[in-house]
């Protein structure tokens, strides 16, 4: 890869930076979210909604603090995030590879396409019992479920992105002395990247869905497991604390990914 560091850097690193002022200027956008939180507090404290069904936000906050200090939140969070990251990471590697090879080699396309198309619309949560049967109650069943669920959207986005590669770019690279294998790495992969990265973003959201639902059904640790037993035990304030934690983590992961995506694809602007 080329790496030119000399000269003036005109590419927009500042536009996508992590600066505090950047975050501060974006905060007003989330005003509706703050209003929703206030509405929650007012309706529960004012007795409009029974506390048994929806605990007040401040009691949820206290419950969150207890879980955080007690270490429960951390321990289960690490277990969950490790599962999600492993499943998603594997899916990114395998899906990108399969999708690009499908676009590049006809035999791979002929072999893989019907399988991908058949399994793509299938709800992956239907596989939870199968995974438990095959892989037991531990990490493996969750990781494989997330992997399988994320694999197809990533494969399809890599495939579509790679198929859209401008033939003239391939010819250009070949005429400058690039081998066919080099072209795959140096032309087809970067051409596929915008679509591939949007596919990974979809998969990122999906990985949270699959994570929590599989942990809810059967697990011994993790966010889903916590939500399950806290709910069963009637500790609704703590349960909501965990639900909100998962929501916040999902949101943060998406925002961080979006920042990364903007940076990697800065050449498009």
């Amino acid at each position, binding site marked *: 890869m*080329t790496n*030119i560091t000399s*000269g*003036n*850097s*005109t*590419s927009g690193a500042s536009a996508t930076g992590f600066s505090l002022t950047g975050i501060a200027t974006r905060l007003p956008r989330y005003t509706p979210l703050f209003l929703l939180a206030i509405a929650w507090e007012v309706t529960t404290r004012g007795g409009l909604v029974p506390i048994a069904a929806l605990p007040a936000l401040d009691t949820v906050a206290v419950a969150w603090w207890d879980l955080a200090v007690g270490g429960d939140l951390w321990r289960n969070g690490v277990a969950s995030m490790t599962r999600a990251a492993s499943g998603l990471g594997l899916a990114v590697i395998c899906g990108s590879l399969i999708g690009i090879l499908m676009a590049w080699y006809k035999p791979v396309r002929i072999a893989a396409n019907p399988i991908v198309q058949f399994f793509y619309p299938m709800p992956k949560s239907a596989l939870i019992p199968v995974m438990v049967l095959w892989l037991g109650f531990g990490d493996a069943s969750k990781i494989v479920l997330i992997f399988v669920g994320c694999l197809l959207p990533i494969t399809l986005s890599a495939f579509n992105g790679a198929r859209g590669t*401008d033939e*003239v*770019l391939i*010819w*250009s*690279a*070949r*005429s*400058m*002395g*690039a081998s066919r294998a080099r072209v795959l790495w*140096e*032309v087809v992969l*970067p051409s596929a*990247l915008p679509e591939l990265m949007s596919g990974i973003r979809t998969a990122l959201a999906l990985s949270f869905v699959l994570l929590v639902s599989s942990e809810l059904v059967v697990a011994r640790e993790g966010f889903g497991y916590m939500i399950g037993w806290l709910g069963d035990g009637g500790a609704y304030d703590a349960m909501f604390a965990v639900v909100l934690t998962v929501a916040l983590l999902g949101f943060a992961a998406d925002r961080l990914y979006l920042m990364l995506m903007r940076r990697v694809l*800065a*050449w*498009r*602007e």
Partner: protein
Amino acid sequence: MSDPAHIVIERVSHEYRPARGRPVLALDNVSLSVQDREFLALLGPSGCGKSTLLYLVGGFLPVEQGRILVDERPIAGPGPDRGIVFQHFALFPWKTVIQNVLYGLEKQDLAREERLRRARQFIELVGLAGFEDSYPSQLSGGMKQRAAIARTLAIDPRVLLMDEPFGALDAQTRSLMQAELLGIWQRSRKTVIFVTHDVHEAVFLAERIAVMSARPGRIKEIVETHFDKDDPDLTRTREFVETVDHVWNLVRAEAIQAQRSGAA
């Protein structure tokens, strides 16, 4: 001329076979030779197969009937001995100008400093100094085409294949680029095959013009021009105007025929 021609095209035919529908004969029994360091224009109405012929010489399409020799050897795929400039630039959008120019140089056995030096030299040659770190999306059409030309010239190909390289540019940029290309060719003296449907451009740039017929493409006539390219009033001389007229008449007949067969 006793030297063997640089590029020899012998009885080449080419058929496109679309997945659905009938096969289309794009080129029919085309023979043509291009001398070393010659500037040849391939001129014809759209759809006459002139780009197809260029892609065959470039090695992007397989030669299925007839043969094409470069330096007396049949071509086997694309290679850095034949550089190409496309109508829509074909710059890598994810690379900056200098990264684009370095791409071909990295495939060659050159030291890093030498690669950088050559890249900068050619970027300067096409007048893009100061835009080394710009991405193609930040450049105008004319600047993109300059970058594409720099990228191709930097690998120092013996043959320069140009596929309507100025077709996407506005008239003013186009005429500036034509003059620049002529200057570059006079300094570096590469063998050039230049595809265009613009009669004036062909007469202005080329030493020989191969006028092609409407589909299926054949060579209809070869027009030789031997103008003094350094004459600033060249385009106003009688000889130039008459040559343009003559070539126009050849192309007009073909264009009308192409339109009729297209409508039928």
